C-alpha cells in the first residue's frame, strides 16, 4: 500500500509511524534535474521507502518524437531511485512541440492503439525496465471511437507487451460519465497484466459529470470495484492518490487500512 509523495505531505509522511504505508509514488517530472529542497526530499524518501515512478508527460498517444536526451535522463533517474517499473498515461498531451500538461483522451481506434503500442515499446527499450500504461478519466468521447476503452487498453498492452496500471477510480468515473457498467468494463480489462493499481476520490458536479480531481475521499463504489479487480490481479502495489484538499494524515491512513483489509479478503478468498 502506497501514498503519493506530495511535497505538501512530505514532512508529515517522514514522521508517520513505521508500517503506516509501504511505498511512495512520485512523478519524475517534478524532480528530474532539480537540486535544493526537492533533491533533499527525494533522497530522504528513497532512503526511507521503496519508490515507484509514475510519469505524466510522455504523451504516448501523440506524434511528437521522444527527446532522446530526456529519455536518457529519465532512465538514469529511474535507475537511481530503484523503481521496479515505470508508468505513464494512455493519452495525448502535446502536439507540434507544445505541451498542454493535461491528460487528454485519445480516440478509441485500432490504429491509435497500435500507434500507442509502438511508442510504449520505444520508451520501454529506452528506459530498460518494465512499463505500465494507465487509462485516463474522460469527460467526452471522440466521434471516431470504434472500440471500448477496455478493448483499446487490451490492444495496447498485448501489442506492446507492457503492463497495466489499473486506475479503479478512472474506470468508475468513465463508467458514470458515459453510462456503462464498470464491472463489465473491468471484466474486459487485461487485469492479468496489472503491475500496479491506483485508487482515488473524485468530484461530482451538479450536472452529474464526475471529474477526476484526487481531492475527495474514495467512494464506497470504488472500494467495491477494487475488491473485484483484486480477485484477478493478484497482489500488486496499490496506491492511494491524493493531490488536493489534503485531509489529516490519519484520515489517509484510514483509507490505507481499508484498502489493506480489502486486499487481505481478496487474497484469502482467492
Amino acid at each position, binding site marked *: 500500500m502506497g501514498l503519493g509523495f506530495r511535497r505538501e505531505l512530505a514532512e508529515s509522511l517522514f514522521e508517520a509511524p513505521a508500517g503506516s504505508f509501504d511505498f511512495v509514488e512520485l512523478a519524475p*517530472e517534478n524532480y528530474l534535474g532539480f537540486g535544493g529542497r526537492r533533491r533533499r526530499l527525494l533522497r530522504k524518501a528513497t532512503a526511507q521507502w521503496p519508490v515507484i515512478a509514475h510519469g505524466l508527460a510522455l504523451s504516448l498517444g501523440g506524434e511528437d518524437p521522444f527527446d532522446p536526451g530526456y529519455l536518457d535522463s529519465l532512465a538514469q533517474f529511474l535507475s537511481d531511485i530503484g523503481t521496479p517499473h515505470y508508468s505513464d498515461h494512455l*493519452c495525448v498531451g502535446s502536439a507540434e512541440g507544445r505541451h498542454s500538461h493535461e491528460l*487528454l483522451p485519445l480516440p478509441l481506434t485500432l490504429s491509435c492503439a497500435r500507434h500507442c503500442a509502438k511508442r510504449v515499446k520505444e520508451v520501454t527499450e529506452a528506459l530498460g525496465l518494465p512499463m505500465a500504461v494507465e487509462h485516463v478519466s474522460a469527460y467526452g468521447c471522440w466521434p471516431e471511437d470504434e472500440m471500448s476503452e477496455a478493448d483499446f487498453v487490451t490492444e495496447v498492452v498485448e501489442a506492446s507487451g507492457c503492463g497495466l496500471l489499473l486506475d479503479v477510480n478512472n474506470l468508475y468515473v468513465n463508467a458514470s460519465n458515459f453510462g456503462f457498467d464498470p464491472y463489465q468494463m473491468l471484466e474486459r480489462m487485461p487485469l492479468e497484466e496489472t503491475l500496479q493499481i491506483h485508487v482515488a476520490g473524485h468530484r461530482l458536479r451538479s450536472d452529474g459529470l464526475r471529474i477526476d480531481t484526487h481531492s475527495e475521499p474514495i467512494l464506497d463504489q470504488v472500494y467495491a470495484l477494487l475488491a473485484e479487480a483484486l480477485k484477478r490481479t493478484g497482489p500488486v502495489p496499490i496506491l492511494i492518490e491524493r493531490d488536493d484538499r489534503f485531509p489529516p494524515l490519519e484520515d489517509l491512513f484510514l483509507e490505507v487500512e481499508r484498502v489493506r483489509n480489502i486486499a487481505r479478503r481478496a487474497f484469502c478468498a482467492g
Partner: protein
Amino acid sequence: MPGESLVRFVLDPNPGPPPFARADLYRVFTRKIHLDILEVAFPRFLSAMGRRRLEEMMDSFLELKGPSTLQYPCVPDEFLAWAVSSGHPAHELLNYERAAVRAERHPAELDHLYAPGQDERGRLNPTVDVFVTAEPVHTIAAEPPASPSSHGPYVYLCWRRPRTDELARQRVGPLLGRALGLLGVEALTREAWLHRALEEESADPEAYREALLDLHRELVSREGILRAGDPD
C-alpha cells in the same frame, strides 16, 4: 493522429469547433493548471498587477507559444523567457521573482562546501544567479515605470546556501557587480580579488576598497562566496 487536434483545440487562440462534446472543459482545465503554477511562481507580480493581468499574459503565452517543456514545474521558466523575448514591460519583475527558484533548484551539490577562511581562496557560490535590470524591481509595488529610470542598472544576486537550502539575495551597483564577476570565473583570496578589482577600476581607490571589503565580508558570512573546490 486525431488526438493531437485536441491539443491544438485547448491551446490555440481561435480553435474552431470542438472535436467532441465537452472538449471545451479541457480548454478550461489547461488554463487553470497553468494559471495555478504561475500564481505560485510570481506572487509579487500577482499582488502588484492583479490576477487578470497574469491571466491575460498566460493566455497570450499559451496561444502564441505554449510550453515546450515536459516538466510542469519548469513552465514558469518558459513563461518568463517568453515575456523577455516579447519585451513585456514586467519581465524584469518576473525575472527577479524567478531568480530565487533558479537558485533554489540549481543542481550543484553544495553540502561539502563552506565559506573561506581569511587567507583561503574563494569563488562565487555555484548557484548564484546574477541578473541586471534597468528598474529597481525590488521596490515595485504597482505598475512598472513607463520609461527606464536614470539610476539603473541594478545588479541582483540570488543564491542557495549549503546544508540549509536557505535563499539569500544581495543587490549591488554595477561596479561591484563587475568585481564580483571575477570570483565567478576564478577562485581568489580576498587580497588577490581586491588587487584585481582595484586594478580594473579607476574609481576613488580608498572608497572602492572599503566597499569591496564590506561586500566580500557580507557574501562570505552568507555563503555567497564559498571556499575553492570542485563545486560539482
